[in-house]
């Protein structure tokens, strides 16, 4: 039995089809990435899973229970983190934690989590930085020892060090057999910690793939300027494409492995060079049309 099962979920806001018939299943003990650009329908799907909003059509089962009919029982076992920071400005972190714990129950890892995230629970939320607010969000999501974590962009606003700490915490949860459903628009993040990924685009599931298959679809974009003459044909290989040219070099995209390109590049004297992960929208346009 899957830990999370979504069948033909549709959510329309009048004429806007925010989610348009998605189906997917997440196995117990899995870290499942829910990947898509902004506005793809990730948050709407998650809000339906949490019963914040009601589906136009379709069914969601979590741990074998209907996510709507058994919402209260299920939430004892679900840790949730929203995509935006929704906290009470006048409350302290401690007040948030105590309030949630008084309803959800104490967390066995609360003290260590506060220490690990270096969070000061005495400060009022309105005085906290975005990163510290996100730390509090994470602490609240992990309260009560949940079996399932539903996290909507959990590392948003966090510095790289803290992101690594969050990844480590999530991997520890997975080792305990807990299931994690994590939405993101950051492909490297999903590649790093997820076993499988569901790719959503314009409200529809474009693909559900193992992370290894997604990695093979990774794409880079960049620009190079040479000090002297160059032969662009030296670079031509599978997955490589020149998108525009100028007198000293060219702009390019590389699908998949970048080493063949770098090996060729090593033969030249380079004046300037820039390469980066392609953004998710470019990847979707290339692979998941």
């Amino acid at each position, binding site marked *: 039995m899957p830990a999370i099962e979504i069948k033909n979920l549709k959510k329309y806001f009048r004429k806007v089809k925010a989610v348009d018939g998605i189906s997917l299943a997440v196995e117990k003990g899995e870290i499942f990435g829910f990947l898509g650009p902004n506005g793809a329908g990730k948050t709407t799907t998650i809000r339906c899973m949490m019963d914040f909003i009601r589906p136009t059509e379709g069914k969601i089962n979590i741990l074998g229970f209907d996510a709507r009919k058994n919402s209260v029982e299920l939430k004892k076992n679900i840790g949730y983190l929203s995509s935006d920071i929704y906290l009470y400005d006048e409350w302290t972190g401690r007040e948030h934690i105590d309030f949630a714990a008084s*309803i959800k129950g104490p967390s066995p890892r609360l003290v260590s989590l506060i220490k690990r995230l270096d969070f000061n629970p005495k400060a009022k939320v309105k005085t906290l930085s975005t990163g510290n607010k996100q730390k509090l969000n994470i602490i609240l999501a992990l309260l009560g020892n949940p079996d399932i974590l539903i996290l909507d962009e959990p590392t948003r606003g966090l510095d790289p060090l803290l992101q690594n700490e969050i990844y480590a915490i999530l991997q520890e949860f997975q080792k305990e057999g807990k299931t994690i459903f994590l939405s993101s628009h950051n492909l490297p993040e999903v590649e790093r910690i997820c076993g499988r990924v569901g790719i959503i685009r314009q409200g529809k599931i474009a693909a559900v793939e193992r992370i290894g298959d997604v990695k093979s679809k990774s794409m880079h974009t960049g620009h190079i300027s040479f000090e002297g003459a160059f032969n662009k044909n030296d670079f031509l290989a599978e997955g490589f494409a020149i998108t525009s040219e100028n007198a000293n070099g060219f702009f390019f995209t590389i699908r998949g492995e970048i080493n063949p390109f770098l090996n060729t590049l090593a033969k030249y004297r380079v004046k300037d060079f820039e390469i980066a992960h392609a953004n998710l929208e470019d990847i979707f346009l290339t692979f998941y049309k």
Partner: protein
Amino acid sequence: MLIIARRALRDKKVFLLSFVLGGIGLAWMYAALFPTIAKMSGSYSEILKSFPEAFLEAFGIGEEMLTGFESYMSSEHFGLVWPIMLIFLIASFAGASISREIEKGTMEILLSLPVSRVKIFFGKYLSGIAALLIFVVSSVLSIIPLAEAYNIDYVVSHFFTMSLLGFLFGWAIFGLSILFSAIFSDKSKVYMATGGIMIGMYVIRIVSILSDKFDKLKYFSFFHYYNAPDALSKNSIALETFIVFISVAVITTILAAVWFSKRDAAV
């Protein structure tokens, strides 16, 4: 549910306290003025005679206000200022209860916890009812020691009756406001809808008094049933007042709870 109610009340304690102190302060001012006004009742009677009868009736002003402390308070304090304070307080509590939480996104904190929407609703509802009770009881019953302090004759039971009338009036308004709060995702719409209806009801009340043709319109106004002079001077509340206020409060509360349970509670 009680945890949510307690927390909601605690979050608005300063706001509530300011209304309570404001209510007591105004009552104090009117109580302090009463001995002087009572001494000058003859001159006031002459002045009042120069006003049209319908005008005096519309604004709850009459010679009887000079005949006793209860009558005076019913027209001066409970005729307009006190109900306005009550409406502001109640609409604010109702608006903050649901629509503001949805508007600010903090409703997600509550909805992500293992507690049903009905319990969230009634948790918030209870905090509003508690605020209403605190305001009504403190601002009405505080008049008793104030009357003592200024050696004014009064009847204790009449002020308890006024508290009951104030509570019923506030409960009906709270029912309407919480229904708007359950429907809208923007607190300003709650204030506008509640304020608009109350202003409309006040106008209906005035029109029904000024014109015999529109007399029956009075039944559509809460201000017709909110009869402070009868409560304070005659120690009575009409049966129709109980029926209308309790019916409105119960029906709107049920509608609000059902609406909140079924709606999309995130924007």
